C-alpha cells in the first residue's frame, strides 16, 4: 500500500518506507507533526507570558509588589516549560501504557528520550515568541510571527526532501537540528544541546530587553514604525 503513494507525498512525511520500524512509525505518525501542534500553543502562551499581562494592565500591579523583573521573567518561563513538559509527558504516557501490547522493540525510557528533541524544539520557538513579544507592539503579533515561522519551518522540512536547494535552506533553520523518530533509538545529544543553547541565547536577549524596558499601561508608548507613521 505504501509503495502506491506518490513519491512526493511519501517524501514530504519523511521516510515512509521505514514505517515498519518503531522509529519510522514514531517519526512519521508523531514526531513529524507533534511539534507543530503543541508549538502553536507554546508560541501563543510564550508571547503572552509578560506582554499579555502588560496589555491587560495586570503586570503593573504585580510588579508593584516585591517581585524582581528577573524572578518574574524566569519564573514564568519555567512554568511554561513545565506545562509543556507535562503535555509531552501525558503524550508519552499514552504510548508507554500501550507499548507492552505492541511489537515495538523499544523501551518506555527510550521512548521518553524521543520526546526530548520535541521539548527542545518547542522551547526554542517559545523563546523566539517571548523575544518577539519584547520588541513587537502586541503579544498577538508576536505569537502570530513566531507561529508563522514555526509553520514555515515545518513546511520547509517536508518540502526539502523534494528539492536540494530547499534542503540547503532547511539546514539554516532550527528544524535541521530536530531529530524525529530516530531519537527513540539513538538520541543525538549534539543537535539537542544546540537547540537548547539557541533557546537560552534568545531567552537571555528577551530577559535583557525586559529588564530595560518600560512597563506599558493603557497603550502608553506603543511601538510604531516612525517612517510609516510619517507617510
Amino acid at each position, binding site marked *: 500500500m505504501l509503495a502506491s503513494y506518490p513519491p512526493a507525498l511519501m517524501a514530504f512525511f519523511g521516510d515512509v518506507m521505514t514505517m515498519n520500524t518503531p522509529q519510522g512509525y514514531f517519526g512519521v505518525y508523531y514526531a513529524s507533526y507533534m511539534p507543530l501542534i503543541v508549538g502553536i500553543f507554546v508560541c501563543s502562551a510564550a508571547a503572552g507570558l509578560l506582554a499579555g499581562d502588560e496589555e*491587560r*494592565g*495586570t503586570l*503593573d*500591579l*504585580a*510588579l*508593584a*509588589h*516585591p*517581585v*524582581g*523583573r528577573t524572578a518574574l521573567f524566569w519564573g514564568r518561563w519555567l512554568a511554561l516549560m513545565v506545562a509543556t513538559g507535562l503535555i509531552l509527558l501525558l503524550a508519552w504516557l499514552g504510548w508507554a501504557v500501550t507499548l507492552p501490547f505492541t511489537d515495538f522493540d523499544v523501551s518506555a525510557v527510550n521512548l521518553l528520550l524521543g520526546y526530548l528533541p520535541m521539548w527542545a524544539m518547542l522551547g526554542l520557538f517559545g523563546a523566539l515568541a517571548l523575544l518577539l513579544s519584547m520588541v513587537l507592539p502586541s503579544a498577538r503579533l508576536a505569537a502570530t510571527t513566531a507561529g508563522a515561522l514555526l509553520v514555515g519551518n515545518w513546511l520547509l522540512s517536508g518540502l526539502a526532501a523534494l528539492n536540494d536547494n530547499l534542503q540547503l535552506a532547511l539546514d539554516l533553520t532550527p528544524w535541521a537540528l530536530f531529530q524525529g523518530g530516530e531519537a527513540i533509538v539513538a538520541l543525538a545529544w549534539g543537535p539537542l544541546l544546540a537547540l537548547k543553547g539557541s533557546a537560552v541565547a534568545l531567552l537571555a536577549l528577551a530577559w535583557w530587553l525586559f529588564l*530595560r524596558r*518600560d*512597563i506599558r*499601561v*493603557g497603550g*502608553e*508608548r506603543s511601538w510604531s514604525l516612525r517612517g510609516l507613521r510619517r507617510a
Partner: protein
Amino acid sequence: MATQPALSIHGLTKAYGNVAALRGVDLEVGRGELFGFLGPNGAGKTTTIRCLLDLIRPDGGQARVLGLDPRADAVAVRARVGYLPGELSIEPNQTAERALRYFAQLRGGVEWAFVRELAGRLQLDLRAPIKNMSKGNKQKVGVVQALMARPELLLLDEPTSGLDPLMQQEVYRLLGEAQAGGATVFFSSHIISEVEAIAERVAIIRDGRIAETLDPHDLLRRSVRRVRVRLREPLPEGALVGVLNATDIQRDGANLLVQVEGEMDALIKALAAYPVIDLETERPTLEEVFLTHYVEN
C-alpha cells in the same frame, strides 16, 4: 535611614517618543507627611509615580524612595511601598479574596484579619468575582491591596477615583490612620477639594514640571469662586458695594451671580441683611485655578 526624606526627586525627565512627559521634576516629601500631588490630566502625575516604582525608567534626573534608588533596589523599595495604580486592572476571573490572597503572598507578612477589617470598612464583598464588580468596587480592592501590608510609604494614584462620596470619606480616614501609624502618604489627584480635605502639603505639577509646593488652603484662598444667590426680592442698588473680593456682580431680577476671590466671610455678612432663598457656590476646577493664577502670573 529614617532621617532621609520619604521621597526625593531631582531633575526627573521622561519622554514618550517626541512627547515630554516630565521636564525636570524636583520634589521632596518628608517622612510621615500626607502629601497631595495635584495636576490636570496629562500633567505627569502618573509618570512620576511609576518612575518611583521602577515601572518606567526616567531619561534623566534622580529619584530616591525611602533613601533607596528605585532602580538599583527595586525589590527593597517595593517591599516597603504600597501602590495603587491609576489604571487599576485585576485578573477578572477570580474573587476579590483570591486576588488579595495572591497579592498578600507576593508581599508576605500580611495579616488576613486586617484585610478583612479594611474590606469591612469599605463595604467590599470579598466573595464577589472581580468581573462582576463595578469600577468603584474594583477600586476598593485596589485600596485594600495597597494598605494591607501597612507599608511605610503609600503611593496612590487617584485613590478615590470611582468611589461614592461616603466611601471617599472612608478612604480619607484610612489614609489619616495610616499616617497616624507612621506611614507617609503620597497621593495624586486632579480634584482640588480632595487635596484640600486631607493633604498637609501639596505640589502642583503642570506640563511635566512642579509649578509650586504649598499649603492646600492657599489654593482656595487664591482661587475665584462663583456664588449664585436667589433672593426673595431684588437687591437694592449698591448693596454689595465695598464688599471685599466680590467682583463682577451680575443681576437678573432677584437672582445674583457674584465672583468671589478668597474668603466668603464678607459676602455672607453683607447678604445677611436681605432675605436669601438659596445660595449656591461653584468651586473652581483645577483648570480654572491654573487659568486664574498661573496663566495670569
